[in-house]
């Protein structure tokens, strides 16, 4: 770029208030952009992390969620006998039949109750779902009315501290520990032993059977086997795909919201930039005349003003990033309609989102500055120097 950028930067400084307002407008747009993307990203990550491509989720045929599914003990045994299932160090197959029921549990701040996923597992589940580990207290003991609570949901429930007795299903359960699961949706669940939960929940059947594949690539064959087995009426899916599909509704809503809101705001901010740049060009006609007279090409003048607008917007974008950054890690919760229960997740700001925010601000600047810059470049010198 022939015309030095310092000319543009200093020219911006000549109208500090006006330019600051324009930059701030961009900052707000970028801030909202980052916040909404972080919200969608946090939710997505919670669900993406939940599923592993090595695991297979088996549900009753036609069920679109664990909630609607039902698999009998016999059928679970048949599924568990598949040779493609990986084995643990003790030789037993890595298969986890699980009960899954949303239960009404009292909320922490006395605000009624919320639906929380209650999952019945065996100790094998901790090997099949690798990311899960106890963070406080201990595992529940077999044969007892004991549960562990996911780290994300624990703060939101009443009587959820280790040692407390939590109530659901018409019974009290001793909270023996909390667990984390790599930020996945499991952290919004309450886990207990299958045998203890079954009689209280849905009865003598499981909702889902999950197992680890010995060989990831064998999924297709396993799926065929299960779905064609005349004894069973099941659907099998890769765990990662399954949880991704569970997040579709909410993700669609969040993405729509993000795009809808930020595009409208962006148009407003761009208009602001257009006004500012036109005014700047109008007040600097003599300077433009000098540049053109000296021999700078009109396209250099165009590039110069475009750069000025882009720089201004970029400053706004940086401010927007800084302002939005503290949002990272804030926990929020909503209902995942697929499982009909509460899921707690964090706003997740990633470097990529920040970069996208900055690029977005640049785009706004360039779009806003284009026509004014073109006017500057097309200025008839002879008129201007009269």
């Amino acid at each position, binding site marked *: 770029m022939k015309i030095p950028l310092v000319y543009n930067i200093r020219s911006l400084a000549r109208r500090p208030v006006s330019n600051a307002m324009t930059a701030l407008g961009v900052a707000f747009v970028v801030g909202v952009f980052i916040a909404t993307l972080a919200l969608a990203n946090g939710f997505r990550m919670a669900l993406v992390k939940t599923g592993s491509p090595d695991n297979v989720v088996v549900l009753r045929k036609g069920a679109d969620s664990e909630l609607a599914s039902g698999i009998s003990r016999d059928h679970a045994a048949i599924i568990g006998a598949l040779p493609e299932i990986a084995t643990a160090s003790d030789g037993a197959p890595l298969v986890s039949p699980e009960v899954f029921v949303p239960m009404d549990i009292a909320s922490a701040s006395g605000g009624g109750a919320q639906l929380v996923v209650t999952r019945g597992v065996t100790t094998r589940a901790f090997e099949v779902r690798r990311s899960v580990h106890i963070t406080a207290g201990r595992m529940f003991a077999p044969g007892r009315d004991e549960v562990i609570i996911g780290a994300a949901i624990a703060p939101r429930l009443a009587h959820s501290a280790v040692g407390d007795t939590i109530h659901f299903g018409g019974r009290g359960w001793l909270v023996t520990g909390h667990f984390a699961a790599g930020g996945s949706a499991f952290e919004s669940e309450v886990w207990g032993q299958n045998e203890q939960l079954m009689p209280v929940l849905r009865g003598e059947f499981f909702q889902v059977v999950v197992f680890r594949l010995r060989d990831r690539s064998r999924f297709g064959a396993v799926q065929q086997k299960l779905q064609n087995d005349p004894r069973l009426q099941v659907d099998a899916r890769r765990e990662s795909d399954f949880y991704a599909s569970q997040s579709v509704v909410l993700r669609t809503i969040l993405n729509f919201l993000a795009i809808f809101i930020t595009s409208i705001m962006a148009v407003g901010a761009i208009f602001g930039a257009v006004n500012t740049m036109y005014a700047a060009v109008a007040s600097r006609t003599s300077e433009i005349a000098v540049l053109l007279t*000296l021999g700078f090409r009109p396209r250099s003048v165009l590039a110069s003003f475009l750069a000025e607008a882009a720089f201004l917007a970029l400053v706004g974008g940086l401010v927007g990033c800084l302002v939005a950054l503290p949002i990272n890690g804030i926990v929020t919760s909503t209902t995942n309609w697929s499982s009909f229960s509460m899921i707690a997740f964090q706003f997740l700001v990633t470097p990529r989102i920040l970069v996208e925010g900055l690029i977005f601000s640049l785009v706004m600047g360039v779009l806003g500055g284009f026509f004014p810059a073109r006017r500057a470049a097309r200025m008839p010198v002879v008129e201007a120097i009269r």
Partner: protein
Amino acid sequence: MALVELENLTKAFSRDSQPIVVFDGLNLEFAEGSFTALMGPSGSGKSTLLNLIAGLDRPTAGTVRVAGAEVSAMSPGALADWRARHVGFVFQSYNLLPVLTAYQNVELPLLLTRLSAAERREHVATALSVVGLSDRAEHLPRQLSGGQEQRAAIARAIVSDPTIILLDEPTGQLDAKSAADVLALLQRLNAEFHKTILMVTHDPHAAQAARTLLHLDKGVLTA
């Protein structure tokens, strides 16, 4: 061959669909190393003439030749390059970019060349010392007096060693003392450095500083 040749030059433009002929069939030559003042009442077209020579405007008919190049036939793009290399232009006011220092303003034409930063620094320093503003290099235009601003503009006009220097009412906004300084500088540039200068002015005092005086009135040139 004269440095600047105007042949059969005609310029007309229409204001509100009324055609106004500024001059018609003008013939003029400027020799290399000349210092000419062009006077005339306002609206006589002297600024227009300057613009035509600088390649900022195109004649309705006729040709403008500077150092053998037919300026009147060049494309806008070529004209820009040509101006950068051959013309030093000084306006009556608003010459300098207010946000750049005197140094940076003078450096501007050199940014259009392939000179290195060190080479540019040398040229700028020379130009500034010729006009006597070396100690004011880091000052912004608002920190300079009117006369100093014009001298800085002249420094910028000579920094790339152009073929001609064109000035449009250079002393119009200056007080007597500053005007005298500027005119003395121009005389020095012409006498010592053999610069070809064409200056448009309506100030007879300024005109006296030049070596040749031309009058333009209603499109007619008189010596």
